């Protein structure tokens, strides 16, 4: 692990938080403008029981939306890989769509599908879907040629070649797509909740903001950051496990 190399940035972060604390005391900044870190921490402890259901709602949103995106992304990439004509038609749209922030479609989805969970699943899944599909297709497209040659010479069927070679060979690519998508999926969920929901970190945020409870907004921000990192970390760990065959320095 590279824990040792992390102490410098960690120290810098601590100093920044200390300066922030000092500045709010020194310049007597209004708490509704910028609360001190200590105030935010206190608020977090107090508000946590009320906040928890919102947090769980967002976690559920992300988990359901994101796992559908993974499954769909891999299936669609597989289909596009099997049918080259379909791939030729769809690929330009896939690439262009990556440059459109899918969140702009959120209001439309709300109109079409109401304020329930479904339109939000759809938004999260769509945002994550494209990078995962493209990375997976990319992985299928660059199958190791020596291994492919072996499979051909051995007379492997198309199905065997796909499941025994192309799919496992694409796993690192699939994970690179998943990791890109994972970094912003919590954020997407929170923004989607701004547009209307019963529960969720985004709802908690807008409610707190409209009543100028700034420290609560900060609580929501901090939790969103922590969740994003945790989510990314989860897939980092999964990737480590799925690619454990890669040479791990010295070990074993």
């Amino acid at each position: 692990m590279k824990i040792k190399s992390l102490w410098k940035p960690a120290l810098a972060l601590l100093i920044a938080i200390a300066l922030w604390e000092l500045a709010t005391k020194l310049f007597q900044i209004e708490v509704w403008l910028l609360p001190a870190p200590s105030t935010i921490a206190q608020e977090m402890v107090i508000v946590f029981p009320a906040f928890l259901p919102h947090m769980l709602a967002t976690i559920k949103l992300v988990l359901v939306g994101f796992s559908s995106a993974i499954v769909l992304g891999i299936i669609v990439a597989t289909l596009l890989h099997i049918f080259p004509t379909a791939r030729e038609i769809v690929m330009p749209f896939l690439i262009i769509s990556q440059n459109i922030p899918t969140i702009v479609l959120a209001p439309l989805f709300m109109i079409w599908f109401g304020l329930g969970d479904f339109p939000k699943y759809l938004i999260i899944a769509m945002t994550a879907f494209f990078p995962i599909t493209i990375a997976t297709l990319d992985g299928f497209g660059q199958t190791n040629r020596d291994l492919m040659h072996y499979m051909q010479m051995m007379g492997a069927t198309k199905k065997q070649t796909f499941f025994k070679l192309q799919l496992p060979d694409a796993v690192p690519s699939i994970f690179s797509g998943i990791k890109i998508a994972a970094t912003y999926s919590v954020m997407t969920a929170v923004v989607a909740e701004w547009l209307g929901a019963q529960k969720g970190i985004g709802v908690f945020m807008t409610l707190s903001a409209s009543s100028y409870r700034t420290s609560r907004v900060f609580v929501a921000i901090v939790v969103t950051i922590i969740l994003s990192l945790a989510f990314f970390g989860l897939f980092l760990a999964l990737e480590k496990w799925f690619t454990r065959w890669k040479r791990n320095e010295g070990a074993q």
Partner: protein
Amino acid sequence: MTLQIQQLHHSFGEKKILSDVSFTVENGEFVSILGPSGSGKSTLFHLIGGILKPEQGNILLNNRDITNQSGHMSYMPQSPSLFPWRTVLQNAMLGSELAGIADEAKAIDLLQKANLGEMIQAYPSQLSGGMKQRVAFVRALLSPQPLICLDEPFSALDSFTKKEMQQWLLKTWEAYDKSILFITHDIEEALFLSDHVIILSTNPATVKASIKVPFKRPRDEQLFLSEEFLHWKRKVVEALKE
């Protein structure tokens, strides 16, 4: 098993690579194909493996035409081509798995005999070059096909490992009833291993000579030092020069 290569011709574009190549591999025979780099040896394997279609000529297995059909031979490529996400054991079983007859006990037994017993659960990235080649050969041996084609399997190894591997290969193969077609550009290797050495010329490749090697089996490294070996080596060198 009998493999017959009959008047095979092949070109890439305008360039003629193989011209009128014919030879036969009998049951249980070890046949080497000796030829300079770029002469078309790998191309010949691709034709036998069925992933290329010859311009002319036929490939018969037990008198049945298998031209342009894959899956009739087991194959060991020049690079070990082990699947990095599979353990040694899973790699060894791949060939038989493709044929639908994976037998784990047999694979473990053969890996143990190849001195890889401790590495069964290791991944290819943890193996040395020689170990990888042994796994690749075990994989080829476990595949059910009666003919194994090896494309310069030891050319990337250092000379010590290479000698060791040649002896190991012979010992392992002798316990089996399989025929081997072996590509090499190493004269000593061809003589030490084979019953027949087929010498190819370049541009385009044709069979220059087919030499029957008379050494008795089992063979060991003493053979390399014998007068007889030197005599045959000279013969092959002369045949190559012609």
